[in-house]
């Protein structure tokens, strides 16, 4: 007999406080998909190598497939669903992915967008090579990354401009 162990956890998910009882064996990725129906959290390897399951935890990027769900207790978790406002407006970075044709099969897209969102929030200016480094934990087999870098650069420049900093 497997004696199942559960833990009650409370955390912020896309801006709202949620509480759930979770099987301690579950990864955060599985919990977000199963319990909260957050289908943006994709799984391409389940061992932290592809980045498809990337979410923000307390503002930093994590591979949710190798993050135990119980560890989310007390944390602030954000997925791509959280970037869309209640009126359905998407974030600048999402729009940039659309505009720059940075989406093909779309499977890596939510993970990339979360990695991009993290670095956009720093308010720093990154060179293309620095962007490559910041996004190096996400794999894409469709785009050759070129348009993804373009999209992130574009959103970065727009945010910097809005913040009164000169774009590159």
């Amino acid at each position, binding site marked *: 007999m497997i004696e199942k162990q559960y833990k009650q956890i409370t955390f912020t998910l896309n801006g709202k406080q949620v509480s759930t009882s979770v099987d301690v064996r579950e*990864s955060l990725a599985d919990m977000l998909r199963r319990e909260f129906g957050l289908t943006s959290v994709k799984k391409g390897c389940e061992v932290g190598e592809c980045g498809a399951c990337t979410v923000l935890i307390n503002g930093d990027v994590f591979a949710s497939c190798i993050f135990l769900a119980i*560890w989310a207790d007390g944390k602030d978790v954000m997925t791509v669903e959280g970037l869309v406002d209640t009126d359905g407006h998407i974030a600048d970075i999402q729009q940039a992915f659309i505009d720059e044709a940075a989406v093909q099969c779309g499977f890596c897209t939510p993970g990339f967008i979360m990695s991009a969102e993290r670095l956009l929030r720093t308010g720093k200016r990154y060179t293309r090579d620095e962007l490559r480094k910041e*996004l*190096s*934990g996400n794999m894409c087999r469709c785009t050759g990354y070129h348009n993804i870098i373009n999209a992130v650069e574009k959103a970065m420049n727009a945010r910097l401009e809005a913040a009164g900093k000169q774009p590159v």
Partner: protein
Amino acid sequence: MYDINHIYEANSVEEAIQRRIEQPQALIISGGSDILIGIRAGKLAGCDLISLYMIDELRGVSLDEDGTIRIGSLTSFASVTKSPVIQKYVNVLGEAADKVGGPQIRNIGTIGGNTCNGVTSADTASTLMAYDAIIELTGAEGKRLVPIEKFYLGAKKTDIRADEIQTAVLIRPESYRGYHGYYYKYAMRSAMDIATSGCSVNVRLSEDKKRIEDARICYGVAGPIPLRTRSAEQAAYGQPVSRDTVEAFAAGALKDVNPRTSWRATKEFRIQIQGELARRCLTEAINRAGGIWA
């Protein structure tokens, strides 16, 4: 879902030690970026775990009064890199930590896990060894300090006793003051890779910047555990900052390295790379130290 039989979550060091005593069969999990992979692969399936993840007191880098740098074992790679203390005194370590995997792994992986895992390719291990770091272990009896070279007992084997956990990695002021260094991670691609070989060098130059007073070099994947190549160090002591010294240093390193052939790389290839890494790392370390070349 991970095949975890039972997980014990510790919220303090004391609690963790208590769990270690009560549950001797249980494995320690910090960030889990090694352990969870092992569970999924079946090797560790069905295990019990003691989770340290919630012990925030083990996170962070600080400077003790005597100048010792103290890195809490749960400090993530990213936090090591970002730490002002690290950047100011042992920036090579921050650079090495920044070469691990990708951003996601650098947020979850811990320096404690990287060293306790006992693997030769661990990106921070060679640099820590090149700094003569001290491992702090805490057990029922209190703290125990072990020089990192002694901490590694063999491949995947480290000196952690049944009641202990690693609580910090320490770097003494005498190990870093006046030293400049460089870490080269050699891998098959520029990110998300395990080192084919790593090399960390640090040097202290004479006041006139023309002589090497001290040099330390440590390799990853030149043997079953991170390896200091003392013949290289000897070849550099007291020598002028020159191409010849660099060559002698590299030749010395090659006397001591003992990589093996595996499907990941042949011995001959690793030796080619290791010789070259010794040259490049020493050269760069000297340059960073403001060396004046003969």
